[in-house]
């Protein structure tokens, strides 16, 4: 058996098993918050994360989950995680797989916004259940910092959206 080479790409792949505690269908990689993977001497690994929302309580949990997950690999040395604002997270960093995962959780994925946020953008949210465009935004604030509240006029279902930021 060929020994697995420890590369940033390998670690990134492994981190796909670490899921967002609030949206357990999406991995932290597809969420776009893994902004740095450094392989050091003795296969010590240093992972850099960027916060989704400054006040997100899941942030520290995700740091711990990364350490816990990677620590279970014998081939890896010490695992350290740091949170840094150097790369500013936006929902445009969520991968296409991430969009699918968000939908699977029953949330409408965020529209691309390129840094410009308008009420129109929020109102133009497709229903994650029936894909209808005939929806009404009820509130830009939802049960967690990253969610907004909507209603689908076609399938008469209330739903939540992942807020574009």
């Amino acid at each position, binding site marked *: 058996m060929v020994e697995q080479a420890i590369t940033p790409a390998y670690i990134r792949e492994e981190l796909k098993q670490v899921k967002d505690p609030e949206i357990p269908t999406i991995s932290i990689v597809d969420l776009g918050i893994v902004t740095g993977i450094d392989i050091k001497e003795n296969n010590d690994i240093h992972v850099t994360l960027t*916060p989704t*929302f*400054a*006040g*997100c309580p899941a942030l520290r949990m995700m740091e711990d989950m990364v350490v816990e997950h990677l620590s279970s690999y014998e081939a890896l040395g010490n695992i350290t995680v740091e949170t*840094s*604002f*150097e790369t*500013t*997270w*936006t929902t445009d960093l969520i991968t296409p797989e991430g969009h699918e995962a968000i939908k699977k959780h029953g949330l409408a994925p965020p529209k691309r916004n390129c*840094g410009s*946020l308008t*009420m129109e953008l929020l109102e133009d949210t497709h229903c994650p259940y029936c894909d209808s465009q005939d929806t009404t935004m*009820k*509130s*830009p*604030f*939802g*049960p967690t*910092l990253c969610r907004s*509240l909507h209603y689908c006029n076609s399938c008469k279902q209330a739903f939540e959206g992942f*807020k574009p*930021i």
Partner: protein
Amino acid sequence: MNSIEALKELLYKIADDQLIIGHRNSEWTGLGPLLEEDIAFSSMAQDKIGQSEHLYNLLHQLGEADPDTVAFTRNAPQFHCSQLVELPIGGYDFSLIRHFLFDFAEYSRFEALKTSAYQPLAQVSKKFFGEIKYHTMHANTWVHQLGKGNEESNGKMQESLNYAWNYALGMFEPGPAEEVLIKENIFIGEIALQEKWFSMISPLLENSGLTIPSQAGWAPIYGGRVGEHTEHLQPLLTEMTEVYTIDPSAEW
């Protein structure tokens, strides 16, 4: 004043504003006039308090105590928040007007700080700027709706605006750090900030059928930045620190 001291002064006033308005916002949890508004003020509280923690962390990196100690062990005279943020929540009219005046000031502040020469502050400001757009959008929607609502709603909003105005001007109290901050390209300074803020809110208030008090009567209420506060701050701090005072090692 050297640039580190100037930077600390700037960070303290922003962080303290965020923490205290965050606490005030949280007082609407369970009491909002609509469920959505209850959630909105609670979410904004979480944003503000989360942001303040990151700013206290920057202060910690500059040698100040850790964020919890800074947030929970100081008394009113050691706080640098503006008096606007410590006023009680009052009626929803006042809370919305304060939210509007405060959040547009923060919007302008973080927009300016995105290009600060002090990189750690520029980085968090970029993040906060993205989040605060939701706060200004929320504030403007309600100010517009109620300003344009009917005579009663317009009257209440106007009355709150008149009351809040001089407190709002107090947010821009210039301090001894201004000159250094401007010279070192850390911050544009309070005078420039107030101008940006004013040019942003004037057309919005006008479109909402509200009148800004005439300039001849402006009398900014200063003092907050140097620890002079209203009688309302200490009771807020006492409540906010209740758990910490009983058991500083408690986790929640």
